[in-house]
């Protein structure tokens, strides 16, 4: 037992969780915590908006595969976190948010800067703690980290009233917590694994589908072994992008509304789909009946609620993917005969080559089209680089044309589709991996949502590169207006303001506008060499469509190409 204030206990608890860095923004109701942070040795990164701080913590979590921490004050500080926390929630990213709160005596009185944090955050988190006495703080923080980082990971909020922060009390710091009724570890059912193996081996046209869960559980190696040993083609969901090296011969890219031609075609033709940590969201499957038509689906997931939620699997295995996929691999190895001469594999490889030739082959001029820009970025960036995206056409082009290498990492807001996510997430990722280049593929609309993070990037010395595919418009919405609303453009034209080069300069960052692929290459190399925050403004045509594209309501085979 030691006697400490609640705020001090919080900071000590963070240290016990090995937190070295937090992202945040102060205010009245959290000053006691900031006072303790000052000499704690924990690095605090000051955002310019709490939403950005939350995205930074999220980007940090995704890049480091540890828990990201964000701190904000009560009321508006907490409500500004909402979009960031909801983004982390839909992508199962482990983020712990610490928020200040009005003193307990003022709770539920509409006090100055009071917001009902448990009420607001309950639907968009795994859990919200609100310790009502200082001695509860160590348990709350320990349990918050435990919940955020185990099972299906996700965000947790600890909302601490100001009097709880200042009160001095006897503290004991638990080594371990259990949360009754919470069972993050489920041992996979070995008979189900055996049945799954049986189904896969009897398939004529099998395909593996990797979701975000593969990245979350760090089982990329097992997936790679599985594909290599059995010569199975691999497609991923958007969240799973990069969980299988995209320069691999068996990589078919991503499925979904803006999936690759070969991925959507092959998953439609397949007779058995083995899914790892994918939740079959509407954006991935499109029309669900068209998706499941004449096919067996085997579902591996850590979260039992995913089974039967969007799809009825033929067979399912619940449990941590590291364990269940390893068991599956072993089971297959016991029986398998490698099938590298199958007609299906021939079809897979020829379709991939045909598509790659069309899309990635050298087609002449040096003009700036988005696919070429993305491919140039790929060419110049070292393979271990981290790429984040904004939302819109830029994100879809990145999805289609940026091939993530084995050592690389791709970070995007796949679930909530939050414009403005990519830039602060890139800064968070840079904080996690300072020696790795980090680049945000952006649209001019999205970038304007969180470009105030330039200040953080520059002053905290977390240099990242932003490539703005600048079409002076909200491109993806404009594409829908062009395609489905008879070109009745409305509220999607942004014009040529601001001047992003000047904006970058105003924040003390580098800014450059490029008009050709050569200039782009030079600018990228310069940015990589100098390690300063660089905004590269790349003007593109507002008329450019992202293709292929599956219209809402259609099946994956109904791609517009």
């Amino acid at each position, binding site marked *: 037992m030691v006697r400490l204030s609640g705020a001090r206990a919080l900071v000590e608890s963070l240290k016990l969780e090995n937190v070295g860095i937090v992202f945040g923004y102060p205010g009245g109701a959290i000053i006691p915590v900031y006072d303790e942070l000052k000499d704690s040795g924990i690095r605090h990164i000051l955002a310019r908006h709490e939403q950005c701080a939350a995205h930074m913590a999220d980007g940090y979590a995704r890049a480091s595969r540890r828990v990201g921490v964000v701190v904000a004050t009560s009321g508006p500080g907490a409500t500004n976190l909402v979009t960031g926390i909801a983004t982390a929630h839909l992508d199962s990213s482990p983020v712990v948010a610490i928020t200040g709160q009005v003193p307990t005596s003022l709770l539920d009185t509409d006090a100055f800067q009071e917001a009902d944090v448990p009420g607001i955050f*309950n639907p968009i988190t*795994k859990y919200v703690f609100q310790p009502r006495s200082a001695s509860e703080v160590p348990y709350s923080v320990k349990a918050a980290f435990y*919940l955020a980082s185990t099972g299906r990971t996700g965000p947790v909020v600890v909302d601490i009233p100001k009097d709880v922060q200042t009160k001095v009390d006897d503290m004991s710091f638990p080594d371990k917590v259990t949360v009754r*009724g*919470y069972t993050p570890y489920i041992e996979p059912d070995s008979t189900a694994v055996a049945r799954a193996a049986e189904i896969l081996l009897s398939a004529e046209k099998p395909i593996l589908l990797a979701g975000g869960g593969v990245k979350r559980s760090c089982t990329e190696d097992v997936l790679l072994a599985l594909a290599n040993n059995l010569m199975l083609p691999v497609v991923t969901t958007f969240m799973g992008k990069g969980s299988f090296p995209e320069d691999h011969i068996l990589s078919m890219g991503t499925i979904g509304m803006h999936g690759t031609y070969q991925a959507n075609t092959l998953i439609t033709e397949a007779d058995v789909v083995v899914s790892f940590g994918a939740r079959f969201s509407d954006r991935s499957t499109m029309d669900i009946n068209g998706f499941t038509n004449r096919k067996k689906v085997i579902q591996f997931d850590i979260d*039992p*609620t995913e089974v*039967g939620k969007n799809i009825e699997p033929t067979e399912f295995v619940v449990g941590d993917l590291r364990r269940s996929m390893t068991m599956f691999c072993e089971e297959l190895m016991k029986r398998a005969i490698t099938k590298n001469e199958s007609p299906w594999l021939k079809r897979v490889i020829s379709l991939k080559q045909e598509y790659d030739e069309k899309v990635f082959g050298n087609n002449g001029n040096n003009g700036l089209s988005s696919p070429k820009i993305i491919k140039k970025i790929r060419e110049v960036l070292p393979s271990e680089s981290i790429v984040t995206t904004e939302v819109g056409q830029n994100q879809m082009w990145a999805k289609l044309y940026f091939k993530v290498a084995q050592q690389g990492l791709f970070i995007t807001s796949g679930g909530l589709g939050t414009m403005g996510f990519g830039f602060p997430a890139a800064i968070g990722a840079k904080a996690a991996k300072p020696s790795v280049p980090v680049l945000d593929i952006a649209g001019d609309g999205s970038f304007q949502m969180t470009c105030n993070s330039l200040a953080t990037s520059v002053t905290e010395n977390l240099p990242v590169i932003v490539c703005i595919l600048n079409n002076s418009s909200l491109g993806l919405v404009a594409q829908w207006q062009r395609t489905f609303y008879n070109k009745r453009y409305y509220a999607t034209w942004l014009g040529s303001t601001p001047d992003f080069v000047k904006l970058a300069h105003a924040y003390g960052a580098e800014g450059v506008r490029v008009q050709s692929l050569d200039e782009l290459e030079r600018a990228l190399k310069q940015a990589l060499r100098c390690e300063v925050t660089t905004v590269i403004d790349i003007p593109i045509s507002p008329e450019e469509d992202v293709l292929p594209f599956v219209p809402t309501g259609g099946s994956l085979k109904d791609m517009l190409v």
Partner: protein
Amino acid sequence: MKRNNLKTVSLLVENKPGVLFRVANHFKRRNYNIESIAVGPTEDKTVSRMVITMIADEKSALSFTRLLRKTIDVLDVKLVEEDNVISRELALVKILTKDQATRDSVIELVKSKGVKVAEVTEDSIIIEVSDSFEGVEDFINSASRFTVCSISRTGVTVIEK
């Protein structure tokens, strides 16, 4: 009278603030109306049982119970199979009795249905019915030929046989 697709979910939850709020929020998100809810502590004072009824088809009810099960502070969830449980609901039914004749026939109904009189006042009788959901519905139907001025029901609770 058995209502179509009336499903009963029985939950064991932590007996502490905020749990009902989180459970109820799931019902709201799925647009399930809570037809009835009965909550109270169990043999373990730190654990409460919530018995909630709703209208839902079997398949969505099953996937919904899995979702509830995942909610932190929910310790266990079962979609109740009526044959495996004893199910009871308490209803208080207040009937206006303007004259002696009405009073007499209400008392007769009470006897024939085997329910209890909880209170008699000058111009009303309060009847206490403890029965299954269907039994309570049945009594309320039979009482409808009188002037029923108020009904208060607890919602069903269940216990496994």
